[in-house]
């Protein structure tokens, strides 16, 4: 953690490799996230998109390479240092991963109770603000099992934003949602960038969602970054796999 880079990039990844006993899932990935932009990571199922996010938050350890989060190398950080770095990052899981033994209010309050010194009243106020910002302020007393998938995503997003992170990671935020709810979640991601100036990295296989929210695209294939650029570059690409994705987007 002593190692501080001069780069202003919220996340800098270099030479990242990861395998699970077989062929490399990620093989020498390198990129930098641009501050206050939405970066979408696209790719087929099983190309290591979710693994990449899990590496970025330190849930998985890389086999090789470095991950600098806000200038701190988390691949070599101690558990305490890693937790300090994690407080600057929000994470929305594919299935939302709400704690099913807690109410919605308790779920959103959980990080606040753990990492802030807010009083009970202040915490409740903050939780209700967060839930209101994602349109879920009326259902705070419900259990996660009592709400729909889209609502769970919203609550998961409120929880991810609880500690006012500078970076938010989204793992398939629109997977399994109907088009209208998916569009609402996409709108929320754009609002985070425009209103709160949050840097986002969004893993998705949905090219339409990516088109709606992304400032920049990364396409993963065969453990490597096949494409890195804007949507304009994406449309101009002559790579056969990219061309297939462009066709799908059209």
């Amino acid at each position, binding site marked *: 953690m002593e190692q501080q880079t001069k780069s202003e990039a919220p996340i800098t990844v270099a030479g990242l490799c990861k395998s699970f006993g077989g062929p490399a899932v990620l093989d020498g990935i390198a990129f930098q996230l641009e501050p206050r932009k939405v970066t979408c990571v696209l790719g087929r199922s099983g190309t290591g998109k979710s693994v990449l996010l*899990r590496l970025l*938050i*330190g*849930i998985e350890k890389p086999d090789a390479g470095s991950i600098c989060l806000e200038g701190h190398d988390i691949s070599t950080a101690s*558990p305490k240092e890693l*937790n*300090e770095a*994690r*407080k600057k*990052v929000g*994470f929305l*899981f*594919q*299935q939302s*991963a*709400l*704690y*099913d*033994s807690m109410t919605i209010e308790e779920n959103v309050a*959980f*990080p606040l109770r*753990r*990492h802030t010194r807010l009083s009970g009243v202040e915490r409740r106020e903050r939780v209700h603000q967060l839930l209101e910002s994602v349109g879920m302020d009326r259902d705070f007393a419900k259990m996660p099992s009592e709400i729909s998938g889209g609502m769970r995503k919203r609550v998961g997003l409120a*929880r991810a934003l609880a500690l006012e992170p500078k970076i938010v990671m989204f793992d398939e935020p629109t997977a399994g949602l109907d088009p209208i709810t998916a569009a609402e979640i996409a709108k929320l991601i754009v609002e985070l960038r425009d209103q709160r100036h949050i840097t986002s990295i969004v893993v998705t296989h949905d090219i339409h969602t990516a088109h709606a929210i992304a400032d920049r695209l990364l396409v993963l294939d065969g453990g490597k970054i096949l494409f890195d650029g804007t949507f304009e570059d994406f449309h101009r690409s002559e790579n056969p796999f990219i061309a297939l994705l462009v066709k799908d987007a059209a």
Partner: protein
Amino acid sequence: MQDVRAVGKPLQTMVEWTGDLGFFCWRAAKASLSRPFEGREFLRQLDAIGAKSLPLAALAGAATGVVLSMQTRDSLTRFGAKSLLPAVIVYSLLKETGPIIASLIVCGRVSAGIGAELGSMRVTEQIDAMEASAVDPYKYLVATRILACIVALPLLTVVTDFVGVMMGWVASTLLDPIPLKLFLSSGFKGGTLSDILPPTFKTAIFGLIIGAVSCFQGMRTSGGTKGVGRSATSSVVLASLFIMLADIVLVRLILEVF
């Protein structure tokens, strides 16, 4: 060569499992000793593991006391030693039957619960979410459950012992009335604290086994709902097995030391 491989593979799996469990316990112990302490979650677990197991432990004690009274009465009458009935009931309950029955009963209830709960949290990414929120799951989920098991087991054993002795008296007095005071005084005659305390406190080790094994099995769950089921089952089976093995060692140790 095939025979060697057939033996070698399970042996390797067993060695790996034991090593992983040791590392897991070390990590949980380290987490439990570092600040901030999870007092609130510990109390919640103490309630879930201890208080909610109370009726079961009492019922197990009652059944054991009644059965012990009926069975030993018959045997002792044959040998003309019926007057020893209170002592046999009290000592067999306090020294072995109470602790092991309480531990195995609680093991069945708690191990399955912890294995399934943590297993389902693992497969639904709730544990990953906790890590992503900068909360150590070993501290919040594992250490609190293991500590609650360690504290709850001796307390539940006291309840099992107490209810067992009382129901032993009730069963005994229904057939051959004997005042409670006389039953207790002849039952505890010549007894010392070293007859009661070591067997009761050895259940703290059984609590450690229940907590550690079931948390370990739950935390390493994979394979969706099927995996959760496997974790719940293996938690109960392995914890029960280790309790019985540990009991052999502890009984020998207690006999040597006290």
